[in-house]
């Protein structure tokens, strides 16, 4: 579809309403089955032996004692698993991946990497057997910082890829003429920015179960966002046709992006099951979700921008270096998306960007909500506040002046639809009476003079779909049953975002049946149509449109069928709330069930249709307004109030959309203030791989959030203009906090997390 297609307006019956989510009924009763709840007869338990060294060659590995341990059924090492080089992040239609992983290698590239796997009759026995595996290492020099890894002569972590520890060739984007831009500038701002290593810390630890049947077919339960990707890569690496791999995932306990790799333990689980001819379950400990899971890429950003005295941005020069960790995983995708994102947000005609992604001997970084953009927009948005300061302007005014507008070229290369960001900003300014907030009395409360208060704004835009990095495809199959109910088959994963409910709403709305009459089948790669996976905020946009297309087709067939039975022409009929009636004569009607069902001489109808949608991209927008309180004696920052204003086009399920925003804000407050997965810079060991020292904001830390959702810029590419919302909130909240801290205490921070120690140190340097 292109942007000139008008968005159909109609009076909605189901879309836009917060209908009850069926999946949630199972969740509140405890019946919902997650992968870890599955128990098969004779099931063994797998555990992984992890290296306690960051970079080494395995000289020898002796598993004889482990194999002899009572209850142990199999042990795998690099010596007895297939040696196939594969992608960790196998986006099947993306050109941007690097094949750099083996199931098990004779080399260790980070502290915590798996070097062997055991299957035993109980988890405890498997765990105990790990200690009996003797590994002799030849230590190799290790690098833990991208700066060090990029130095000439640095130890090389891989022999694939472009060399120099680069994961991919530098990503370069040039628009306009940057030098000419700087020449016109009245002043130039230049700064370096950096981001830590936040972890998605989904509540359900990674888990999978493998079971082979007598025909050599693998059934594989796993907690994944991308079951078809797992199917594809398992088949490729294990040398099986796709008919011999069936991936199942019903409910999953969160992913936030990070569960879209094919993980080492997934291959090992399948191989242990094959070796023992028994089902094998592998479940991460919480510690393993950190060490062997995926975190956000730490990033260093250098940003130089030229401004005119009227606030116009005339040049942007930016370099980003992402730390990939020991393997490529999503490094290429993140680098491309994060770098190209910086062409936009605030309009600038002359842009020069360079993004690099570098291997280090640290745990693997992968996809996490905000995918590279958290890092780049943190820099853009904070420097915009600095420019406002320099100009003596209210940052709100400068941002309003410069935010992207309809028709501007988006990072994807497409013109932007609608003035979404401008409208969000203006809306927040109005509802909060921003001017009076800026001009408020700033004298501290005499009873608590050490508490300083501040307000800040953060802006963002984010695409639904990974285009142009990946040419995406959404699929849906809709069947109408003979009793008038409808079955939707979708490959989209149920992460908990309410996507299946939204898809059912779309089908019901388009088809003209009741929401309760639509059932959703998902989570079985043998049954549902191919799906790219749940990521890039695209499920509603991409699969939603495919579902709508399929529903349009079945609707036409249902009307044909009814026309035959009612002896009229199909185009004389209409269908609403499960009733088919003659438009001109609403008294003449039949139910969908009557149309579908058998009658004398006519069997029941079989109506099935597929929808396939290959879109480009839409952009959602947000401006967050945030109040912080800073304790100038302890350095503790409390986020008190957040007013997030989002444009997500047509809202399908308001409560689910709000929930996405509030959850994203929690994670964003976390990475901006308290969350950082810390790797020891001397050894590469994890220092806080657990939920007490990895500090997510909890119930007592969360501010009041007053979510505002606008339908300001519906995108014709999504169902009735719907766009994504999953990733947006986590991007805008960070700079809004950093900017609010500046407003409170007059100190600028260019990094996250901003710790209490950072606050005290900066206040001291400022001479407060």
């Amino acid at each position, binding site marked *: 579809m292109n942007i000139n297609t008008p968005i159909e307006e109609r009076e909605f019956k189901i879309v836009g309403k917060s209908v009850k989510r069926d999946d949630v009924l199972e969740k509140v009763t405890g019946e919902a089955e997650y992968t870890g709840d599955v128990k098969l007869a004779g099931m063994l338990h797998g555990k992984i032996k992890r290296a306690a060294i960051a970079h080494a060659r395995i000289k020898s590995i002796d598993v004889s004692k482990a194999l002899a341990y009572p209850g142990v059924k199999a042990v795998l090492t690099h010596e007895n698993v297939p040696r196939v080089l594969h992608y960790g992040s196998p986006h099947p239609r993306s050109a941007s991946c690097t094949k750099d992983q083996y199931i098990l290698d004779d080399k260790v590239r980070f502290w915590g990497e798996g070097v062997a796997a055991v299957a035993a009759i109980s*988890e405890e026995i498997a*765990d105990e057997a790990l200690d009996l595996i003797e590994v002799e290492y030849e230590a190799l020099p290790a690098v833990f910082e991208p700066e060090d890894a990029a130095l000439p002569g640095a130890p090389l972590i891989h022999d694939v890829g472009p060399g120099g520890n680069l994961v991919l060739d530098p990503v370069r984007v040039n628009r306009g003429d940057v030098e000419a831009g700087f020449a016109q500038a009245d002043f130039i701002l230049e700064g370096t920015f950096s981001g830590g290593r936040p972890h998605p810390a989904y509540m359900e630890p990674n888990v999978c179960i493998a079971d082979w049947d007598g025909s050599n077919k693998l059934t594989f339960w796993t907690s994944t966002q991308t079951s078809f990707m797992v199917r594809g890569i398992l088949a490729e690496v294990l040398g099986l046709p796709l008919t011999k791999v069936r991936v199942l995932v019903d409910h999953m306990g969160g992913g936030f992006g990070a569960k879209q790799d094919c993980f080492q333990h997934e291959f090992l689980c399948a191989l242990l099951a094959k070796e023992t001819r028994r089902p094998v379950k592998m479940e991460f400990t919480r510690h393993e979700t950190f060490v062997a899971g995926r975190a956000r890429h730490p990033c260093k950003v250098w940003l130089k921008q030229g401004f005119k005295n009227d606030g116009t941005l005339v040049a942007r020069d930016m370099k980003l270096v992402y730390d990939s960790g020991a393997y490529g995983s999503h490094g290429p995708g993140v680098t491309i998306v994060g770098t190209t994102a910086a062409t936009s947000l605030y309009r600038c005609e002359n842009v020069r960007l360079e993004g690099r992604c570098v291997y280090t001997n640290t745990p693997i970084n992968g996809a996490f909500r905000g995918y590279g953009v958290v890092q780049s927009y943190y820099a853009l948005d904070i420097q915009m506040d600095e420019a406002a300061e320099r100009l003596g302007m209210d940052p709100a005014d400068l941002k309003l002046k410069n935010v992207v507008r309809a028709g501007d070229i988006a990072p994807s290369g497409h013109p932007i639809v609608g003035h979404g960001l401008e409208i969000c900003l203006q809306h927040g300014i109005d509802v909060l009476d921003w001017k009076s907030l800026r001009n408020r009395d700033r004298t501290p409360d005499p009873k608590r003079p050490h508490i300083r208060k501040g307000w800040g704004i953060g802006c963002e835009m984010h695409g639904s779909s990974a285009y142009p990095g990946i040419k995406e495809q959404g699929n849906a199959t809709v069947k109408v049953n003979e009793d008038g109910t409808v079955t939707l088959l979708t490959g989209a994963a149920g992460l908990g975002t309410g996507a299946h409910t939204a898809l059912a709403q779309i089908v019901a709305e388009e088809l003209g049946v009741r929401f309760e009459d639509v059932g959703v089948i998902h989570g079985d790669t043998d049954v549902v149509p191919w799906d790219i996976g749940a990521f890039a905020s695209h499920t509603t946009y991409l699969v939603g449109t495919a579902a709508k297309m399929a529903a349009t087709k079945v609707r036409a067939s249902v009307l044909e069928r009814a026309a035959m039975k009612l002896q009229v022409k199909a185009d004389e009929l209409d269908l609403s709330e499960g009733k088919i009636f003659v438009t001109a004569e609403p008294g003449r009607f039949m139910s969908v069930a009557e149309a579908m069902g058998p009658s004398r001489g006519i069997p029941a109808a079989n109506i099935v249709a597929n929808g396939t949608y290959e879109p480009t991209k839409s952009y959602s927008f947000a401006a967050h307004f945030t109040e912080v309180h800073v304790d100038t004696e*302890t350095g503790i920052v409390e986020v008190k109030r957040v007013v997030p204003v989002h444009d997500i086009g047509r809202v399908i399920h308001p409560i689910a959309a709000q929930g996405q925003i509030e959850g994203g804000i929690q994670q964003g407050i976390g990475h901006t203030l308290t969350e950082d997965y810390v790797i020891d810079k001397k050894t590469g060991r994890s*220092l806080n791989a657990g939920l007490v020292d990895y500090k997510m904001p909890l119930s*007592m830390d969360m501010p009041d959030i007053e979510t505002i959702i606008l339908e300001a810029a519906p995108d014709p590419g999504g169902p009735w203009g719907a766009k994504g919302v999953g990733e947006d909130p986590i991007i805008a909240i960070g700079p809004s906090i950093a900017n609010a801290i500046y407003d409170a205490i007059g100190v600028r921070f260019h990094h996250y997390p901003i*710790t*209490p*120690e950072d606050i*005290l140190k900066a206040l001291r340097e400022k001479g407060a």
Partner: protein
Amino acid sequence: MRRFDYHGAETLEQASRLLTDLGDDTFLFNGGTDLLVEIRERLRRVRNVVDIKGIPGLSDITYDETRGLTFGALVTVGRLERLALVRERYPNLRDALASLGSIQVRNRATVVGNVCRASPSADTIPPLIADGAFIHIYSRTNMRVVPLAEFFTGPGKTVLAKGEIVTGITVPPAGDNSGKAYIKHGRRKAMELSTVGVAVSLSMDDGVCSDIRIALGAVGATVLRAPAAEAILRGTRLDAATVKSAADKAMEECTPISNVRASADYRRDMVGVLTGRAITQALEASA
């Protein structure tokens, strides 16, 4: 997780024997909130645990005006936290109890276990030390009572010998015009292990501080007293300048380390800030 064997004891004597006879890697099992975590995270090698929860007489809580509060080894943090008596007379202890872990953890964790684990950051220890608590120790040969301040010998280390069991803790009663405070510092408001914890217990006599004890958590190998800071305060009216100089003194008296939770310098700074705040809060409470 690693397997271990479980032994339920019915008397102190039996528990004590099991602890000595089952050999190394045998540990007393109380609420289990430290022990089970250490087993699961492979921080401690454990072959046997000896559960004392079946031993009668270890769950009592008593109070009288002369001896003060005595509670047994099995008394959970949650149970003590919910007692009105503790809220009224030992507000410092009560704040420490209410800040320990979560409600769920507090329903299992015991105060005695928190003390016996001897973590420098344990929340219940600073207020108990500031209040001058002592600890009752059972042994098959000689029972003893030890001032809590003398109980710890290092991080995770106490004066307990193999087979000795703590049966309870006594906290002296609060005098008239006394004031108490415990301030825990962490980056979250709950589910935090203290980066610094400061407890203050003081008595005022006609506007003059007649006695004061300051205990500092998480800034040394054990919970520390700050005797020099206390000396500065004793006999003064606790005016702002004196409090400030005592707080500065406490910063000199502590010996923090750096780790992933905070740097030594930051911890030292917080000792200064929180000592000042805790003294002020205790003073207000004494009025």
